[in-house]
């Protein structure tokens, strides 16, 4: 189709207006959600590698009884860092920082997130908090009290070193990053959807991110309070958890798990969203029972706040309390079950094509069901009171966190690879990767159910040989290395394809959501003309897509007068105002740097310097808000 002159001129104007600074500095000041997404991608994969190495050292140590590859001091740091790294610095930043950030504006037909500078701030704070935590490791002061850091073990008396402080302050800084990201998603999803995209026409991935963001907003403060209590106790001798002074160590556990349980749904919800994006594409069928699936995603997030005590069944609580939380833990199975059957029925009534992304989703469904089943068992209080704190639980949560949360991320990396890079990955290598990782995952984590049932507790750096735990551990270790091999193959595939893969075009898989209606990779302004939307499968609506070039020519919703995107009403998506987006800015990275430095000063007990950093942060914020984006 020939592109008219007017259209071409509009596109050129958009290119000029939305262009960012080139080179390295451009990355430091970018406010483009796609580039910020890529920053998150690279950083989270680096932390993934770190967490993976930590795991492999642990598995080497555990491969045989009475092994002495590392001692308990090192092992305890490794197991703590592995948990903290994988949860806070890998899976969540990859899910919402990369997939969420990159895709949500595209899927809703917007040009950027609602608060582009705050988006950049979220990333730089994440990086700063990760550097802070890992500098603890580098200095030989990694935290070593486990990722949930129970008191009194984590108190100053029993953990006199600074490791626990690195943990607490690193996570407080990290939580600011996640809270800002959640706020950004909520406002973006609420107000930046393309005109005509009422909530029931919003893709399911965005519902998943919506649910995740609500959870983050209400769950993170419980962790912040807990960490603040801990640091006030450690640094100033306050007493929240000391029995002798009127405190209670269970207060730490309650606050932690009030955060911790919603956290696991925060971890897995984006993966549900990715599954609901991949399945329709590769089955060429709309998701069955769309409204039920959307509702189920929101319900999982909501009910997730009411189950936390199931992490504390062995602490000697009154039976009535435990029964209530066991019931809630069973109820949450229902929205999960609804989604599982919806995914399966979409595949049964569709025409599935088992390319790499869909293979990972099939693996995901199997792992989610299996891990969910062991989760249901854990809701049975007497059974939990036997297996809690054993390898049975380690098996359960790796099936759900690794199998169910990460497999869609891996599938998603393949699926959106052509969109982000403009090139196609190698399909045969991709399928091989799937099988290696799928088999490796089962070989690694399945035997842990058994060693748990045979009585092997968690967080043990070694074990005796006469209890029958040797074979399971050895098999797990083999599986871990096998799984790593699959991941290495995936990395090679994607890195080589990035430079030498065949060009992909805008929609190589026939995807339904709006990111597939623009070029690969998308231009900095995402869409030359804001798309017309009539359903959640906007790219499949050919009538609407045919109007795009005509509207571009006419200048209907091209908005090339500035850095602009439409603002719409929260529920119905009616056009409401033109929003002016900020241009690139040095203030987000500056503020993140000052905040990280301030946190480091608190850690080192230089409180005056920390206060100075707070003042400096205020000054940076003033400078930030002096740049007021104006609609032309």
């Amino acid at each position, binding site marked *: 189709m020939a592109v008219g002159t007017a259209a071409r001129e509009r596109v050129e104007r958009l290119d000029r207006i939305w262009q960012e600074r080139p080179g390295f500095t451009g990355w430091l000041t970018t406010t483009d959600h796609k580039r910020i997404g890529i920053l998150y991608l690279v950083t989270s994969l680096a932390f993934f590698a770190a967490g993976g190495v930590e795991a492999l050292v642990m598995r080497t140590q555990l491969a045989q009884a009475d092994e002495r590859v590392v001692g308990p001091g090192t092992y305890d740091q490794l197991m703590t860092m592995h948990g903290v790294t994988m949860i806070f610095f890998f899976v969540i930043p990859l899910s919402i920082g990369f997939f969420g950030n990159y895709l949500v504006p595209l899927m809703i037909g917007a040009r950027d997130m609602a608060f582009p500078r705050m988006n950049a701030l979220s990333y730089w704070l994440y990086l700063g908090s990760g550097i802070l935590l890992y500098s603890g490791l580098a200095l030989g002061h990694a935290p070593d009290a486990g990722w949930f850091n129970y008191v009194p073990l984590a108190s100053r008396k029993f953990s006199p070193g600074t490791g626990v402080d690195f943990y607490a302050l690193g996570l407080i800084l990290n939580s600011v990053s996640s809270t800002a990201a959640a706020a950004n998603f909520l406002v973006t999803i609420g107000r930046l959807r393309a005109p005509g995209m009422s909530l029931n026409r919003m893709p399911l991935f965005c519902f998943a991110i919506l649910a995740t963001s609500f959870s983050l907003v209400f769950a993170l403060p419980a962790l912040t309070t807990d960490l603040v209590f801990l640091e006030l106790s450690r640094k100033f001798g306050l*007493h*929240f958890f000391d029995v002798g002074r*009127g405190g209670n160590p269970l207060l730490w556990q309650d*606050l932690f798990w009030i955060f911790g349980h919603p956290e696991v749904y925060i971890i897995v919800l984006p993966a549900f969203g990715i599954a609901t994006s991949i399945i329709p594409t590769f089955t060429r069928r709309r998701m069955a029972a769309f409204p039920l699936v959307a509702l189920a995603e929101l319900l999982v997030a909501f009910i997730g706040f009411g189950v936390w005590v199931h992490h504390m069944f062995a602490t000697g609580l009154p039976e009535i309390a435990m029964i209530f939380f066991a019931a809630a833990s069973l109820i949450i199975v229902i929205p999960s079950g609804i989604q599982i059957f919806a995914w399966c029925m979409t595949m049964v009534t569709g025409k599935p094509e088992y390319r790499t992304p869909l293979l990972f989703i099939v693996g995901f469904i199997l792992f989610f069901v299996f891990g969910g089943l062991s989760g249901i068992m854990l809701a049975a209080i007497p059974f939990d009171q036997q297996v809690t704190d054993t390898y049975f639980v380690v098996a359960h949560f790796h099936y759900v966190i690794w199998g169910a949360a990460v497999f869609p991320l891996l599938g998603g990396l393949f699926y959106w690879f052509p969109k982000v890079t403009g090139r196609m990955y190698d399909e045969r290598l991709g399928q091989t990767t799937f099988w290696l990782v799928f088999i490796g995952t089962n070989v690694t984590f399945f035997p842990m159910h058994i060693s748990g049932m045979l009585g092997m507790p968690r967080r043990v750096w070694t074990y005796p040989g006469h209890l029958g735990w040797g074979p399971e551990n050895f098999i797990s270790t083999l599986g871990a290395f096998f799984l790593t091999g699959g991941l290495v193959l995936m990395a090679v595939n994607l890195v080589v394809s990035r430079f030498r893969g065949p060009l992909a075009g805008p929609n190589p898989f026939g995807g339904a959501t709006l990111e597939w209606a623009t070029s690969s990779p998308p231009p900095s302004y995402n869409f030359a003309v804001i798309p017309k939307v009539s359903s959640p499968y906007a790219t499949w609506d050919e009538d609407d897509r045919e109007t795009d070039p005509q509207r571009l020519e006419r200048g209907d919703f091209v908005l090339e007068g500035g850095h602009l995107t439409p603002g719409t*009403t929260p529920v119905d998506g009616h056009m409401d105002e033109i929003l002016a987006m900020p241009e690139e800015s040095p203030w987000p990275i500056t503020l993140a740097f000052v905040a990280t430095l301030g946190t480091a000063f608190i850690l080192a007990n230089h409180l005056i310097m920390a206060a100075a950093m707070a003042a400096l942060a205020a000054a940076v914020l003033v400078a930030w*808000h002096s740049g007021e984006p104006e609609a032309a």
Partner: protein
Amino acid sequence: MTATATRRNARPNGWYGMVILVATEASLFGTLMASYVYLRFQTAVWPPHGVAAPSATAPTVLALVLVASALPMAYAAHAADRGRRRAALAGIACALVIQAVYLGFQIHLYADDLSRLSPSRDAYASIYFTLLAVHHIHVGVGILLDLWLLARLSRRLTPYRRTAVSAVAFYWYFVAIVGLFVTATITSPTW
């Protein structure tokens, strides 16, 4: 389509952003107050022996004063929405004076408490001083926001700044209401 001052149906994004920030802070205060209640019901004697129960008079009066300061802030937001810069300035300045006096008194009371009770004495002291400090910090941040608004509004009233005024006003409504809850919690031994 153009225009900066279009009639909107939805609130501006910055206002929604503040609402979400307020939601997280409400959650934070919720966990702090829940911790107070948790610790309180662990202990037979609360406050512990040797610690006087806090007087309810001064804190209650001050809490109501803070709530009162929300009125000039609401007036300022209302005026800013209608493009009346000077009226908005006046509202913010008035609120700021009340809030500053409030905070001054609170800091004085806090220092007085500290001279009689150390936060590291026991769980009661720890949660008492922490909950109050978090609230006072929120008031302090609000005052800084007021000062920033005054500085910006002294020149022009742009749509951006109009959103800022309504967002800061919303922040103050939250801080004032939370102040009532915090005061109720802190003075609960005296009821």
